[in-house]
């Protein structure tokens, strides 16, 4: 188990690093995909079967595909990524420094010895599943909790998804490409035409 865990940990950290350091966004997506897969496996070892599944389906299947789609759309010849000068070229140094300090603090907090054991009183423990790790985290267990105890959060997610749908429609839908000034719009249209012509060849 230890080997699996540390193997996964290495994959997770490495892929996370790759995600933020990759030179092209597409590579970032691929790295993130690896990260999510490793995470799903880690969930399985923590007996969160349903969540592992969701992780693969929603994250890898939906969210990352969305990213890929947008990257493909934006890089289709209209303009390159990351134009313009880097206005904060040396930000990485203080950033990494700060982040390391913050990380150090959190890790210290985590490893700091607890003078007293963690209390159980008042915590809402899933009583029926104590000691029975096979049931805990299964689809049935998860579903029962979601539709009884946690019904309100579940209902709210429906509203959140609706906001996402309507928000995207309102943002992007039913209007012409950007019309700032006529000249600008014409420019955009022209470059779009050129791009389409290139793709057609």
């Amino acid at each position: 188990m230890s080997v699996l865990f540390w193997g996964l940990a290495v994959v997770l950290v490495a892929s996370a690093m790759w995600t933020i350091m990759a030179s092209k966004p597409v590579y970032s997506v691929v790295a993130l995909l690896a990260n999510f897969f490793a995470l799903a496996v880690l969930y399985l070892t923590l007996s969160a079967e349903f969540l592992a599944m969701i992780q693969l389906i929603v994250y890898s299947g939906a969210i990352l595909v969305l990213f890929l789609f947008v990257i493909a759309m934006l890089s289709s010849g209209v303009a390159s990524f990351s134009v313009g000068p880097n206005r904060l070229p040396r930000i990485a140094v203080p950033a990494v420094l700060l982040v390391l300090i913050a990380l150090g603090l959190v890790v210290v907090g985590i490893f700091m010895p607890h003078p007293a054991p963690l209390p159980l009183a008042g915590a809402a423990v899933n009583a029926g599943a104590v000691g029975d790790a096979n049931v805990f985290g299964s689809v049935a267990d998860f579903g029962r909790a979601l539709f009884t105890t946690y019904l309100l959060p579940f209902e709210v997610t429906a509203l959140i998804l609706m906001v996402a749908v309507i928000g995207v429609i309102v943002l992007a839908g039913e209007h012409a490409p950007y019309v700032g000034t006529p000249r600008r719009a014409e420019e955009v249209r022209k470059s779009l035409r050129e791009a389409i012509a290139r793709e057609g060849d």
Partner: protein
Amino acid sequence: MSANVTNADWAAVLSIAVLGATGLAVLVADLLARTFVRRYIAIAIAMIGIIAAGAIVFAQYGTHYSAFGGAFVVDYASVLFQGIVLLGALGSVILYGAIGEERRIAGALALMLWSACGAMLMSGAGNLMTIFLGLELLSLALYALCGIAERAGAHEAALKYLILSSTATGFLLYGMGLLFGATGSVALSALSNPALATNPIFWTGVGLFFVGIAFKLSLVPFHTWAPDVYEGAPLPVTAFMSVATKAGVLAVLVRVFLWSLPSQHVSDMLLPMWIVAGISMIVGNVGMLAQRDLKRMLAYSGIAQIGYILAALAGGSAEGFNAALYYFAAYSFMNLGAFAVAAMLSGDREEGSVIANYSGLGYRRPWAALAMTVFLLAMAGLPPTAGFLGKVFILRSSVETGYVWLAALLIVGTAISLYAYGRIVRAMYDRSTHPVPAAKPFVPLAALSAAICAIAVIALTFYPFSR
């Protein structure tokens, strides 16, 4: 544990459901309506929905129970904060109706209503999940609303808000994870366990949780997004952000920090919060001095005013809570009113948010200038406005509970702010000839809400009469 969901549970969130359904109704009606009545129908439905939700909320006044196994709480605080959220939603909906783009009005109003749903959920949140979901519902709709206008500034504002707010949410979420780990429960009631006081994971969780809260309240140093986003977002959206968002987050703050933490460590745990509140008072007021955009200035003003409100909460006394609520209500009215006046003066390009356009207003639009003067006086905390009384209450409670240094910072901040607000008042009564921008069609509604806010800002001064 797996309690059945009863009618009482649903009644607790009925107002939120009504608001959510109203959003749908606005969209459906927009599909069916003819073009030229779209605007009227959208505003009418939205207003009816908000008022109905408000009636339901205030019918709950005086009751105290928790629903959905503790996920949602109905009490004094939830009712009052939800009331303020609805007030902010009503004002912003009217303003959007007045100056928003006809083409997207239904979508925008629906998003605004759903965003208000999020804030209302936060007002009554009883566990971490509800807080998180309420916050995300609120924020997601606001991201979209920020970017809704066809201006480069709006897109930039949306992008900035999206990235920074998501980052802050990440911190909040991580903090929640640690809190869950420390307590083994998502319920806020589990946080009050005195044994937690020795657990560093709990403390770290509280710290990160507070980062998320401070970001949403735009406290220094988590405030940097606010001026940019306020300036770039459409005016009614900014109005909504300045009232409804803060109502929801303040409710969470009160519920988590003041009412749920282990009581013997509460003052230690909250010290950083009061410090950043004090810094915010100064930075916010100084930041106002050099601004040329009204919305941007109001962002800095909001930073300072939230600092004042936290100063009232600092002692944790009941009187301080009342002072904070009173000041927050007054703040809502004066902010909405100022935005309403700006909307009255706005044509196609939001001219009302350019401070230079206010010079000589006292002679061109005497009533608008008078209303604006009332709001600015209230923000500066001068009599005879509710802002003055609110500051008196805050000072009293913070001095009584021993936070004299906060009171002193408040006074210093107020003194700095007098110049910033006075600058606009003076400009309005300077004689100069400045072109009047053409007004938009629904401006009478904006004027009406400005008038109501102005009267409320004065009338709130007499509020303690009724006691």
